Structure formats: C-alpha cells, structure tokens
C-alpha cells in the first residue's frame, strides 16, 4: 500500500508541476491552496466551482453581446471581460487571464472579428482548465482513499 501511495503522490506532484509549467496556473493558485486548512477543507474546490460558474455566465453574456444584429456594445463586452479577468486572476487561472488581457484590448479597439475569435479561445481555455483541475481533484481523492496524504507541491 505504501508503494502505491508513493506512486500516486509522485504522479500528483508531476501533474501539478506540469500545470504550472504549461502555464495553466500561476502563483495565485499556490496562494489559494495555502489558504485551505482543516477548518476549510473544501475551500479550493468551492472557489473553483464559483469561478467556473462565473465563466459560464460571463462567456454567455459576452456571446449575447457580440451576437447583436446592428451595433455591438463593446463596452458591455468589455465589462464582462473585466470581470472574468478579475476572477481568473484571483484563482491563478493564468491562460484565461492572459486571454482576457488581449480580449479587453480588442474590445477597446472595437475589433469584432478579434473579439469573436478571442471569446472562442476563452471558452476552450476555461473548459480545458476545468478538466485538468478535475483530474487533479481525482488524484487527490485516490491518494486519500489509498490511505495517503495529499502532498504540498513546491513549484519553485
């Protein structure tokens, strides 16, 4: 059982490191993890759940705003991008945040095609991150079920 736990823990460490190395996550995610303790054991999962709900809502708002026949209200699109940038920044969703920075510039330039393309990328990116973090939580569950402790991963 120890060897199995050790293997799972190693798999977990490598997986977390890869998420940082591939730019999915940044230091703010580390900060988020550091706030989780025995008193708030599900904090990270709760915050991420709120974040992904936010993504669904905001991407929907942006899509509707860009789908207007006639004049597109780019300030409305921009307001939603701004909010998504804030929440992605707060959970350490590095790629989503990066896309939002570009997206905001495209809104300010009133670049319709650019905004539509960027929205598609945001949609793909947050869904990809969601799947990857679900894998992370599944690994954590496997470690605990095998009798082990989820390791703290030093990303530096």
């Amino acid at each position, binding site marked *: 059982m120890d060897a199995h736990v050790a293997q799972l823990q190693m798999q977990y460490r490598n997986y977390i490191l890869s998420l940082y190395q591939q730019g999915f996550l940044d230091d703010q995610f580390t900060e988020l993890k550091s*706030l989780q303790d025995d008193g*708030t054991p599900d904090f990270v999962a709760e915050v991420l759940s*709120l974040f992904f709900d936010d993504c669904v809502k905001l991407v929907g708002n942006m899509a509707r705003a860009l789908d207007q026949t006639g004049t597109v209200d780019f300030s409305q699109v921009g307001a939603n991008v*701004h*909010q998504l*940038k804030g*929440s992605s920044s*707060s*959970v350490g969703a590095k790629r989503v945040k990066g896309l939002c920075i570009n997206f905001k510039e495209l809104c300010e330039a009133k670049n319709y095609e650019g905004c539509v393309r960027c929205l598609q990328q945001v949609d793909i990116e947050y869904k990809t991150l969601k799947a990857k973090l679900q894998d992370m939580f599944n690994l954590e569950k496997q470690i605990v079920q095998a009798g082990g402790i989820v390791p703290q991963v030093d990303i530096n």
Partner: protein
Amino acid sequence: MATTSTGDIEKTKSVEVKKKLNVLIVDDDPVIRKLHEIIIKSIGGISQTAKNGEEAVNIHRDGNASFDLILMDKEMPERDGLSATKKLREMKVTSMIIGVTTLADNEEERKAFMEAGLNHCLAKPLSKAKILPLINNLMDA
C-alpha cells in the same frame, strides 16, 4: 456574586469579540468575495459581504454598522467603489477603507480613488502577505 461573575464574563467576552477584526467585503464578483472571506478568516477575522457599492452604503444607513475594515472593489454596477467610498465618508463612516484595484488602472484612476476617502489601495489579487501589514497597523492603532 453571580451578577459580578456574569458581569466579568460578559466584559471578557466583549473584549475578545472586539479584538476580532470585523470586515465588510464589497465586490460584485462572487469568486473574489469568497477569496477575501477566506483570507480574512485565515487571519482570525469575521466578514460580511456586499455585492456592490450601493449595498455597502445601505448596510451603513441605519448607523449601527461597525466595521474595522472595508475592502472596496473599484468597478461595480449600481454604485462603484469611488462613489461608495465618498458616500461612506460623507456619512461619517470611520472604518479603514482599502480600495482594491486592478493593475490596468492607471495612476490617475488610483489617485482619484484614494482621494474619495481611502486609507490604502491594493492591487488584485489580494493575498495574506499584501493585507496583513495593513491590518496589523490597524489592530495596533
């Protein structure tokens, strides 16, 4: 004797409660509200939240609200952080107000926010490391 010990216990209780930092978190984003709630909890504080500046002002309207600290987001619907801060100061609210801005905000925007009545301004995302020195100063005061 019962009265005295009850009185002493109540007095001790009120001192302990008073030392716990009481924070109002004002942000339209539920993710950020949750994050800031946990940060405040992690440093031993308690918090209440408001979804925008108008809610924050309404919480203070009856004159009974008493927060040590208000974390005020800048851009919010209904009433933004700048307007809410101005209004709270007009209402003689003396809580420490920390404005929470984004890196995209330029120097002029930050200055205008400070001049609305903030004590400090911090950029998102907030962290324990950013907020703790300010809170320690507040608790020492």
